């Protein structure tokens, strides 16, 4: 008999619909997997009752002869950045310990409305700030992957959606939600050999999702393949009147529109993405990707995005600035922890609560953000960064005159070992070099697995699309997926 945890979202959905198996069997199979994978530390909270309730509803509906919802019988993992009613939500930060929302985020509600169930809340970098999942207050998430060098180093699952990437790669859930501010869906997807898409800014509502950097944050799906990503994204996206930046557009039928035939498509290769010190293997995977695109019928054009190298510094002004303000609400008054030293006044209570509640990386970014917004520095840093952002967006607009999608590596390296980069913030920030520019421009972008490096670790390719052209991105991703034949999976050691 097939292992139900091996067949992905489309397979589960179709199998439940045609009666090949019960939704309840699927839920039970994943619940067992989750309970056996504590070593990965991917889940902060397990919610088997939620998954079972959704599965039971799907089975009951089918028995009653009703039309099943789009995700009926599909259990998923939920990044802990999404507020879930009645289920502890912490953004992996001590400062929100014990916080139980009385409300459901729009994205998670959309998924439940589509029939999905929740296996649990996924670990992540604290407040989504990190690229390795080492900033969680509740311990590192471990990648299910190991190097093939015989060593047993624990590897980073990427970040900030590291619980999501680790869980999907280890088959603890067939799909998961992620959020992407500067690469937090794409980089962990690349590190763990799965797919993930960040849609156009405004496609997914931000209401009820704990904010990191408002002008950049976007939710998106992480799953085993392109089709599963399309299915999940269709359920997650949609206009929401509660989010002033939500796009008032219908959600396209992305799954139905999938096609790996790229005849007539122009694929741009941005020359500035060829950075110093990039491993040879990444360069050769990129070349392989170009060949696959051609094979699928696309034509290749070299394009220039001249302000690429300024994207990271601009991002590390804008994102911390917004974060320093977004995180001001964590003050020990209305929710989360309160640290009240003896005899402390209100302002002392704030300072003590925040010193105790925030982890070092969160504090670092709040400090940077506070600094760049402070009197005398605002124009030199923040205004200049937003001007550079305009130039970066303009670079992309010019590129769209010559091509329809862009193909780049997702990350400048394969997964690194935990602890390897945590001492040097800038080295860590450089991991987002290929993902940040499209975030700054609000563009849809996706990572799909392309192959393995010499150490046996997955490498990802990134496709960046025009605003609102998720379909183009998914189709190019599908063309790569069909040709890459990526079937590698980590061996279960956990």
């Amino acid at each position, binding site marked *: 008999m097939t292992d139900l945890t091996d067949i992905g979202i489309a397979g589960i959905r179709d199998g439940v619909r045609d009666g090949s198996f019960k939704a309840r069997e699927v839920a039970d199979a994943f619940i067992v997997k989750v309970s056996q994978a504590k070593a990965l530390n991917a889940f902060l909270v397990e919610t088997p009752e939620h998954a079972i309730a959704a599965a039971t509803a799907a089975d009951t509906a089918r028995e009653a002869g009703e039309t099943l919802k789009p995700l009926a019988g599909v259990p998923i993992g939920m990044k802990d950045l999404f507020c879930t009613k009645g289920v502890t939500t912490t953004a992996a930060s001590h400062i929100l310990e014990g*916080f*139980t929302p*009385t*409300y459901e985020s729009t994205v998670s509600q959309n998924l439940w409305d589509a029939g999905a169930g929740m296996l649990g809340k996924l670990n992540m970098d604290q407040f989504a700030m990190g690229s390795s999942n080492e900033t969680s207050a509740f311990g590192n998430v471990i990648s299910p992957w190991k190097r093939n060098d015989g060593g047993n180093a624990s590897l980073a699952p990427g970040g900030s959606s590291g619980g999501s990437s680790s869980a999907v790669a280890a088959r603890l859930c067939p799909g998961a939600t992620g959020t992407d501010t500067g690469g937090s869906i794409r980089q962990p997807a690349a590190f763990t050999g799965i797919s993930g898409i960040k849609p*156009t800014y*405004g496609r997914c509502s931000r*209401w009820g999702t704990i904010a990191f950097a408002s002008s950049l944050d976007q939710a998106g799906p992480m799953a085993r393949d392109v089709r599963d990503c399309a299915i999940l994204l269709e359920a997650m996206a949609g206009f929401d*009147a*509660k989010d*002033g930046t939500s*796009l008032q557009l219908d959600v396209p039928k992305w799954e139905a529109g999938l096609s790996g035939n790229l005849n007539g498509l122009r694929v741009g290769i941005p020359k500035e993405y060829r950075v110093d010190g990039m491993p040879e293997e990444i360069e050769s995977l990129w070349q392989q990707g170009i060949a696959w695109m051609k094979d699928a019928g696309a034509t290749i054009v070299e394009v220039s995005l001249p*302000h690429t*190298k*300024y994207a990271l*510094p*601009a991002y*590390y*002004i804008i994102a911390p600035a917004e974060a*320093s303000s977004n995180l*001001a609400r964590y003050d*020990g*008054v*209305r*929710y*989360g922890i*309160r640290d*009240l030293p003896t005899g*402390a*006044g209100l302002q*002392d*209570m704030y*300072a003590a609560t*925040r*010193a105790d509640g*925030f982890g070092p990386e969160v*504090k*670092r970014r*709040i*400090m*940077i953000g*506070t*600094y*760049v917004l*402070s009197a005398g520095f605002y124009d*030199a840093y923040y*205004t*200049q*960064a*937003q*001007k550079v*952002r*305009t*130039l970066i*967006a303009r670079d992309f607009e010019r590129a769209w005159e010559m091509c329809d999608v862009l193909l780049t590596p997702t990350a400048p390296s394969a997964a690194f070992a935990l602890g390897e980069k945590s001492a040097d*913030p*800038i080295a860590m920030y450089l991991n987002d070099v290929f993902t940040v520019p499209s975030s*700054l*421009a*609000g563009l849809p972008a996706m990572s799909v697995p392309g192959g393995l490096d010499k150490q046996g670790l997955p490498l990802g390719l990134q496709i960046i699309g025009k*605003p609102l052209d998720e379909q183009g991105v998914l189709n190019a991703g599908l063309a790569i997926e069909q040709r890459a034949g990526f079937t590698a999976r980590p061996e279960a050691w956990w």
Partner: protein
Amino acid sequence: MSVDTATVKRIASLARIAITDEDAARMAPELGNILGWIEMLGEVDTTGVEPMTAVIPNTLRLRDDVVNADPLTGGGIREQVLANAPAAEHGFFAVPKVIE
């Protein structure tokens, strides 16, 4: 870019994060490095360039002036509002006494 410990302490105070002298001394070079790195932006000629306002062309939608039209953004939910408070008494949030 060099950042001194006094600056670190001033910023920490603005951000309401308690910090020891030791931590401030440790953070000073670290912040200095990061700020030095991002100062690379100064190279870019942005004459005549408008700062980004909306990444995807979109304008602000306005809400109708209706009370509690959507329960998720309406009032009358005191229980919910106070449910997670570290200290709530008599329908209020409680904080250490503020002397004005």
